[in-house]
């Protein structure tokens, strides 16, 4: 999406329930996928429901792309808002088969044209499912049908509420490429709710962080996910590093993809959904990284990246230290034992090699 595809979502909303309150006053620029990220119970889904008009007790204003959806004196009901909402539990209509579920949207969309039935069916790969009953679908298939059904309403804003949360790793792997391709293919800005760092790293261009019903941070995905203060907060972060790369080639026979990271070559499990030459984000857990002071030989590890050690921070009450290494301009975090740090003599400025197994880049979950 180009810059002029940016849409402004202007929120000034509050809602209070026993034991929970939410207050958000912020303008959010939406383009591509915006991740709404934070711990469970932090109000992410509630905020999404407010935007969709499903929380009628919410007060305040919601303005999207210049359209007033909610003000102090008006409330556009959910069925009049041009949003597409994908629920965590898919919510397919069980009295209709797959095709009829899709037609439900088609029959009710205000204007003809826009996203076509065939286009959506092929984009979501659900052609073989059309005449199945909804009971006969797997979790991943159900979610793909739900996304297709939502797209057919011609939404101008897509809201995805933890669409993968109810799926096991295998199903996530099956459906992620479809979601990943959505913004480019259909040009609709999306807000994607999740508490999974790897989903965020993979899908989100920008990230809005929500905790205790408040927005606590917002910005480009890489900088938000790499921020040190994020790692130590109460967020569900396991320490990860995000590498921005460009796809060089897909090695189909080997099921691998070679990417470029600022001149360094990295090999990752194949990610066919991203075309050659396109950018991608990789996430790797700090616990999956090995640090060497000399270039090792005879190892199965495919990725050996030279870097310079930036800092060592001891994590009290544990066996581990968090080591930050500058790798071609990206800060990569590695979780090492105090013992290893001491024995290798690691200190800021040390030239090291960062070793990452290809399997650590598995982008399934």
């Amino acid at each position, binding site marked *: 999406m180009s810059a002029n595809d940016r849409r402004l979502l202007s929120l000034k909303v509050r809602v209070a329930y026993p034991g929970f309150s939410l207050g958000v006053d912020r303008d959010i620029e939406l383009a591509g996928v915006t991740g709404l990220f934070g711990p469970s119970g932090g109000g992410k889904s509630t905020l999404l429901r407010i935007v*969709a*008009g*499903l929380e009628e007790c919410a007060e305040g204003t919601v303005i999207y792309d210049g359209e007033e959806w909610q003000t102090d004196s008006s409330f556009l*009901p*959910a*069925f*009049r808002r041009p*949003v*597409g*909402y994908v*629920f965590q*539990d898919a*919510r397919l*209509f*069980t*009295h209709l088969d797959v095709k009829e579920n899709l037609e*439900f*949207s088609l029959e*009710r*969309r*205000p204007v003809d044209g826009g996203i076509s039935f065939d286009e959506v069916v092929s984009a979501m790969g659900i052609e073989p499912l059309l005449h199945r*009953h909804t*009971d*006969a*679908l*797997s979790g991943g298939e159900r979610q793909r049908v739900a996304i297709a*059904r*939502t797209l057919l*309403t011609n939404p101008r804003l897509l809201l995805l509420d933890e669409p993968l949360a109810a799926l096991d790793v295998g199903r996530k792997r099956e459906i992620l490429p479809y979601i990943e391709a959505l913004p480019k293919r259909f040009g609709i800005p999306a807000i994607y709710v999740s508490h999974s760092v790897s989903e965020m790293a993979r899908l989100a261009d920008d990230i809005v962080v929500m905790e205790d019903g408040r927005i606590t941070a917002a910005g480009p995905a890489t900088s938000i996910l790499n921020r040190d203060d994020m790692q130590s907060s109460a967020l569900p972060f396991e320490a990860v590093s995000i590498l921005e790369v460009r796809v060089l080639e897909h090695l189909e026979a080997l099921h691998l993809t070679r990417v470029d990271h600022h001149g360094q070559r990295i090999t990752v499990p194949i990610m066919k959904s991203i075309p050659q030459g396109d950018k991608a984000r990789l996430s790797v857990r700090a616990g999956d990284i090995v640090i060497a002071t000399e270039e090792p030989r005879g190892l199965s590890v495919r990725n050996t990246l030279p870097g310079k050690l930036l800092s060592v921070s001891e994590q009290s009450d544990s066996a581990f230290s968090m080591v930050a290494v500058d790798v071609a301009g990206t800060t990569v975090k590695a979780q090492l034992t105090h013992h290893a740090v001491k024995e290798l003599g690691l200190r800021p400025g040390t030239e090291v090699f960062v070793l990452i197994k290809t399997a650590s880049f598995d982008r399934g979950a």
Partner: protein
Amino acid sequence: MPDLGPLWLSLALAGVTTAILLLVGTPLAWWLSGTSSRFKPVIEAVTALPLVLPPTVMGFYFLIALGPASPIGSFWMRVTGDALTFSFSGLVVASVFYSLPFMVQPLQTAFESIGRAPLEAAATLRASPSDAFFSVAVPLARRGFITASVLSFAHTIGEFGVVLMVGGNIPGKTRVISIAIYEHVETLNYAAAHVLSAGLIIFAFTVLLFVYGSGRGKPVHVR
């Protein structure tokens, strides 16, 4: 062969009553299933009253409320030129109230078990509330509708006390099957009473078998 007039009258009464109950009971059940109003328990209690009251209590008050001296009865008299008590219309009014819980409770349960989730989904797919009601809630509550209609119909067929008090025993007008049986027994015409009674038992059993049997054992494909 006994006179089958009372049978047809019972079927007509039950049919009309069930049709009216569908129109009245559906919105009431829908409202009860979704409201958090403080009047909800009051309405629920009123709806359930016919389940616990002796039919004679209801019949007694219907007789007073629908009688020619009452506002309702005299209004009816002016509009139709006929009395509401001891008439088929009066039986319909009484039956609607008497069978109300048999329509409202299964429907309310059905609507409640559907929950808000499918309706929210319908709203995000541009379905207005009334559209969502007819195209999502009603088809999903299909089994509830069948159960409620069958029970209302059957319960109306089986009523006796209310009918006797409000309608009396006028052949072709208010002598429904249960009254006819009573009449046969009183006049020691046991053969005719047997035919009608055994017929009712078979009818009731068939209906209940249908209610309990429907929707069970339906193959559900889950992978």
